[in-house]
Protein backbone atom coordinates (compact mmCIF):
# COMPACT_ATOMS: atom_id res chain seq x y z
CA UNK A 1 0.00 0.00 0.00
CA UNK A 2 1.36 3.41 -0.87
CA UNK A 3 0.95 6.37 1.39
CA UNK A 4 -0.72 9.58 0.34
CA UNK A 5 1.50 12.47 -0.63
CA UNK A 6 1.99 15.69 1.25
CA UNK A 7 1.86 18.56 -1.22
CA UNK A 8 4.43 21.27 -0.50
CA UNK A 9 4.95 24.29 -2.72
CA UNK A 10 7.51 27.05 -2.25
CA UNK A 11 6.72 30.50 -3.61
CA UNK A 12 9.47 33.16 -3.43
CA UNK A 13 8.32 36.71 -2.78
CA UNK A 14 9.74 39.97 -4.11
CA UNK A 15 11.07 40.98 -0.70
CA UNK A 16 13.26 37.92 -0.18
CA UNK A 17 10.61 36.22 1.92
CA UNK A 18 9.29 32.79 0.98
CA UNK A 19 5.83 31.30 1.34
CA UNK A 20 5.64 27.56 1.94
CA UNK A 21 2.17 26.19 1.25
CA UNK A 22 1.40 22.76 2.68
CA UNK A 23 -1.62 20.66 1.79
CA UNK A 24 -2.52 17.21 3.05
CA UNK A 25 -1.89 15.35 6.27
CA UNK A 26 1.11 16.02 8.47
CA UNK A 27 1.50 12.84 10.49
CA UNK A 28 4.37 10.48 11.21
CA UNK A 29 4.64 8.99 7.70
CA UNK A 30 4.64 12.46 6.09
CA UNK A 31 6.56 14.56 8.61
CA UNK A 32 9.93 13.76 7.05
CA UNK A 33 8.83 15.30 3.73
CA UNK A 34 8.09 18.57 5.49
CA UNK A 35 11.35 18.49 7.43
CA UNK A 36 13.33 18.08 4.20
CA UNK A 37 11.39 20.82 2.42
CA UNK A 38 11.77 23.33 5.24
CA UNK A 39 15.49 22.60 5.60
CA UNK A 40 15.97 23.26 1.89
CA UNK A 41 14.05 26.51 2.15
CA UNK A 42 16.01 27.69 5.18
CA UNK A 43 19.34 26.67 3.60
CA UNK A 44 18.69 29.20 0.83
CA UNK A 45 18.72 31.98 3.44
CA UNK A 46 15.34 33.64 2.95
CA UNK A 47 14.53 36.90 4.71
CA UNK A 48 11.48 35.23 6.29
CA UNK A 49 9.30 32.17 5.85
CA UNK A 50 5.50 32.31 5.87
CA UNK A 51 3.69 29.01 6.29
CA UNK A 52 0.36 28.61 4.55
CA UNK A 53 -1.25 25.66 6.34
CA UNK A 54 -4.78 26.34 5.09
CA UNK A 55 -4.68 23.11 3.08
CA UNK A 56 -3.67 20.89 6.00
CA UNK A 57 -6.51 18.47 6.74
CA UNK A 58 -4.78 16.60 9.57
CA UNK A 59 -1.87 17.33 11.87
CA UNK A 60 -0.67 15.72 15.06
CA UNK A 61 2.05 16.57 17.53
CA UNK A 62 4.67 15.12 15.18
CA UNK A 63 3.76 17.81 12.67
CA UNK A 64 3.72 20.49 15.35
CA UNK A 65 7.20 19.35 16.38
CA UNK A 66 8.39 19.85 12.79
CA UNK A 67 7.07 23.42 12.80
CA UNK A 68 8.66 24.15 16.17
CA UNK A 69 11.95 22.66 14.96
CA UNK A 70 11.94 24.82 11.85
CA UNK A 71 11.30 27.93 13.95
CA UNK A 72 14.18 27.02 16.24
CA UNK A 73 16.56 26.31 13.34
CA UNK A 74 15.60 29.55 11.61
CA UNK A 75 16.04 31.56 14.78
CA UNK A 76 19.75 30.70 14.86
CA UNK A 77 20.21 32.79 11.72
CA UNK A 78 17.67 35.43 12.62
CA UNK A 79 15.09 34.19 10.13
CA UNK A 80 11.46 34.37 11.15
CA UNK A 81 9.19 31.39 10.47
CA UNK A 82 5.56 32.23 11.06
CA UNK A 83 2.18 30.70 10.31
CA UNK A 84 0.43 33.00 7.86
CA UNK A 85 -2.65 30.88 7.25
CA UNK A 86 -4.00 27.92 9.10
CA UNK A 87 -6.90 25.48 9.08
CA UNK A 88 -9.34 24.22 11.67
CA UNK A 89 -7.38 20.98 12.35
CA UNK A 90 -4.14 22.95 12.79
CA UNK A 91 -5.85 25.47 15.05
CA UNK A 92 -7.31 22.69 17.16
CA UNK A 93 -4.04 20.84 17.71
CA UNK A 94 -2.25 24.08 18.54
CA UNK A 95 -4.94 24.63 21.16
CA UNK A 96 -4.66 21.06 22.53
CA UNK A 97 -0.88 21.33 22.80
CA UNK A 98 -1.03 24.69 24.50
CA UNK A 99 0.81 26.34 21.63
CA UNK A 100 -2.01 28.46 20.30
CA UNK A 101 -0.75 31.48 22.21
CA UNK A 102 2.75 30.87 20.90
CA UNK A 103 1.54 30.98 17.33
CA UNK A 104 -1.69 32.87 17.87
CA UNK A 105 -0.39 36.40 17.56
CA UNK A 106 1.20 35.70 14.22
CA UNK A 107 -1.61 33.76 12.56
CA UNK A 108 -2.99 36.17 10.04
CA UNK A 109 -5.80 34.23 8.49
CA UNK A 110 -7.71 31.07 9.20
CA UNK A 111 -9.51 29.25 6.44
CA UNK A 112 -13.01 27.86 7.01
CA UNK A 113 -13.11 24.62 9.04
CA UNK A 114 -11.99 21.63 7.02
CA UNK A 115 -13.15 18.84 9.33
Amino acid sequence: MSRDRLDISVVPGDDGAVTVAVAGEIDLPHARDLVVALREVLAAGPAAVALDLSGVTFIDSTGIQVLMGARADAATTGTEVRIAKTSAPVQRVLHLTGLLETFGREIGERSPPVL
Partner: protein
Amino acid sequence: MRLELGVRLLQDVDELTTFRHLLDGALATLGVTEDCRADVGLIVSEICAHVVSYLAKGDHAQVGVAVADGMCVVEVRADGDVDPQRPNVLAESGRGLRIVSQLADNVAVFADHSHGLLLRAGKKLVTA
Protein backbone atom coordinates in the same frame (compact mmCIF):
# COMPACT_ATOMS: atom_id res chain seq x y z
CA MET B 1 -21.06 -5.85 16.32
CA ARG B 2 -17.38 -5.72 17.06
CA LEU B 3 -14.79 -4.18 14.74
CA GLU B 4 -11.07 -4.77 15.14
CA LEU B 5 -8.17 -3.24 13.25
CA GLY B 6 -4.48 -3.59 13.92
CA VAL B 7 -1.16 -2.20 12.82
CA ARG B 8 2.35 -3.50 13.47
CA LEU B 9 5.10 -1.16 14.48
CA LEU B 10 7.70 -0.51 13.30
CA GLN B 11 6.94 -2.58 10.17
CA ASP B 12 3.83 -0.69 9.13
CA VAL B 13 4.88 2.83 10.04
CA ASP B 14 4.39 4.05 6.46
CA GLU B 15 0.84 2.71 6.52
CA LEU B 16 -0.30 4.69 9.54
CA THR B 17 -2.15 7.23 7.40
CA THR B 18 -4.02 4.45 5.62
CA PHE B 19 -4.75 2.79 8.95
CA ARG B 20 -6.28 6.01 10.26
CA HIS B 21 -8.31 6.45 7.08
CA LEU B 22 -9.66 2.90 7.32
CA LEU B 23 -10.73 3.48 10.91
CA ASP B 24 -12.30 6.83 10.05
CA GLY B 25 -14.28 5.27 7.20
CA ALA B 26 -15.52 2.47 9.41
CA LEU B 27 -16.61 4.90 12.12
CA ALA B 28 -18.35 7.08 9.53
CA THR B 29 -20.27 4.04 8.33
CA LEU B 30 -21.33 3.41 11.91
CA GLY B 31 -22.67 6.96 12.10
CA VAL B 32 -20.01 8.42 14.39
CA THR B 33 -19.89 12.21 14.20
CA GLU B 34 -17.06 14.06 12.45
CA ASP B 35 -15.86 15.68 15.67
CA CYS B 36 -15.68 12.35 17.46
CA ARG B 37 -13.92 10.70 14.49
CA ALA B 38 -11.39 13.54 14.47
CA ASP B 39 -10.71 12.88 18.16
CA VAL B 40 -10.26 9.16 17.55
CA GLY B 41 -7.92 9.84 14.61
CA LEU B 42 -5.76 12.11 16.73
CA ILE B 43 -5.67 9.63 19.61
CA VAL B 44 -4.57 6.81 17.30
CA SER B 45 -2.00 8.96 15.52
CA GLU B 46 -0.51 10.27 18.75
CA ILE B 47 -0.30 6.87 20.36
CA CYS B 48 1.31 5.30 17.30
CA ALA B 49 3.81 8.16 16.96
CA HIS B 50 4.70 7.91 20.61
CA VAL B 51 5.13 4.14 20.49
CA VAL B 52 7.44 4.52 17.49
CA SER B 53 9.58 6.99 19.41
CA TYR B 54 9.71 4.56 22.31
CA LEU B 55 10.65 1.43 20.38
CA ALA B 56 14.28 0.57 19.92
CA LYS B 57 15.59 -0.87 16.67
CA GLY B 58 14.41 -4.45 16.36
CA ASP B 59 11.51 -3.99 18.78
CA HIS B 60 7.98 -4.69 17.67
CA ALA B 61 4.60 -3.63 18.97
CA GLN B 62 0.99 -4.15 17.99
CA VAL B 63 -1.48 -1.30 18.06
CA GLY B 64 -5.02 -2.63 18.07
CA VAL B 65 -8.22 -0.66 17.76
CA ALA B 66 -11.49 -2.26 18.83
CA VAL B 67 -14.93 -0.72 18.35
CA ALA B 68 -17.77 -2.23 20.34
CA ASP B 69 -20.58 -1.17 22.66
CA GLY B 70 -20.26 2.50 21.80
CA MET B 71 -16.58 2.65 22.66
CA CYS B 72 -13.37 2.80 20.66
CA VAL B 73 -10.44 1.29 22.52
CA VAL B 74 -6.84 1.74 21.36
CA GLU B 75 -4.45 -0.76 22.88
CA VAL B 76 -0.70 -1.16 22.57
CA ARG B 77 0.98 -4.48 23.18
CA ALA B 78 4.65 -5.19 22.80
CA ASP B 79 5.55 -8.39 20.98
CA GLY B 80 7.51 -10.44 23.48
CA ASP B 81 9.22 -9.30 26.62
CA VAL B 82 9.66 -5.66 27.44
CA ASP B 83 12.81 -4.56 29.15
CA PRO B 84 11.66 -3.67 32.68
CA GLN B 85 14.45 -1.12 32.91
CA ARG B 86 13.03 0.82 30.02
CA PRO B 87 10.78 3.72 30.96
CA ASN B 88 7.05 3.23 30.67
CA VAL B 89 5.55 4.49 27.45
CA LEU B 90 3.48 7.06 29.31
CA ALA B 91 6.18 8.09 31.70
CA GLU B 92 7.66 10.58 29.29
CA SER B 93 5.96 13.90 29.04
CA GLY B 94 5.14 15.23 25.63
CA ARG B 95 2.65 17.05 23.50
CA GLY B 96 1.27 13.84 22.00
CA LEU B 97 0.35 12.31 25.32
CA ARG B 98 -1.12 15.60 26.43
CA ILE B 99 -3.45 15.37 23.44
CA VAL B 100 -4.38 11.76 24.23
CA SER B 101 -5.15 12.56 27.84
CA GLN B 102 -7.37 15.46 26.78
CA LEU B 103 -9.32 13.59 24.11
CA ALA B 104 -9.68 10.08 25.54
CA ASP B 105 -12.30 9.28 28.15
CA ASN B 106 -9.92 6.94 29.91
CA VAL B 107 -6.23 6.10 29.68
CA ALA B 108 -4.80 3.14 31.55
CA VAL B 109 -1.16 2.26 32.02
CA PHE B 110 -0.16 -1.26 32.96
CA ALA B 111 2.90 -1.57 35.12
CA ASP B 112 3.33 -5.32 34.57
CA HIS B 113 5.82 -5.15 31.74
CA SER B 114 6.33 -8.93 31.71
CA HIS B 115 3.02 -9.26 29.87
CA GLY B 116 4.04 -6.67 27.33
CA LEU B 117 0.89 -4.61 27.72
CA LEU B 118 1.83 -0.98 27.72
CA LEU B 119 -1.29 1.18 27.53
CA ARG B 120 -4.96 1.38 26.66
CA ALA B 121 -7.01 4.45 25.78
CA GLY B 122 -10.78 4.50 25.43
CA LYS B 123 -13.06 6.98 23.70
CA LYS B 124 -16.84 7.03 23.90
CA LEU B 125 -18.30 7.21 20.42
CA VAL B 126 -20.84 9.89 19.63
CA THR B 127 -23.29 9.10 16.86
CA ALA B 128 -25.39 11.56 14.92
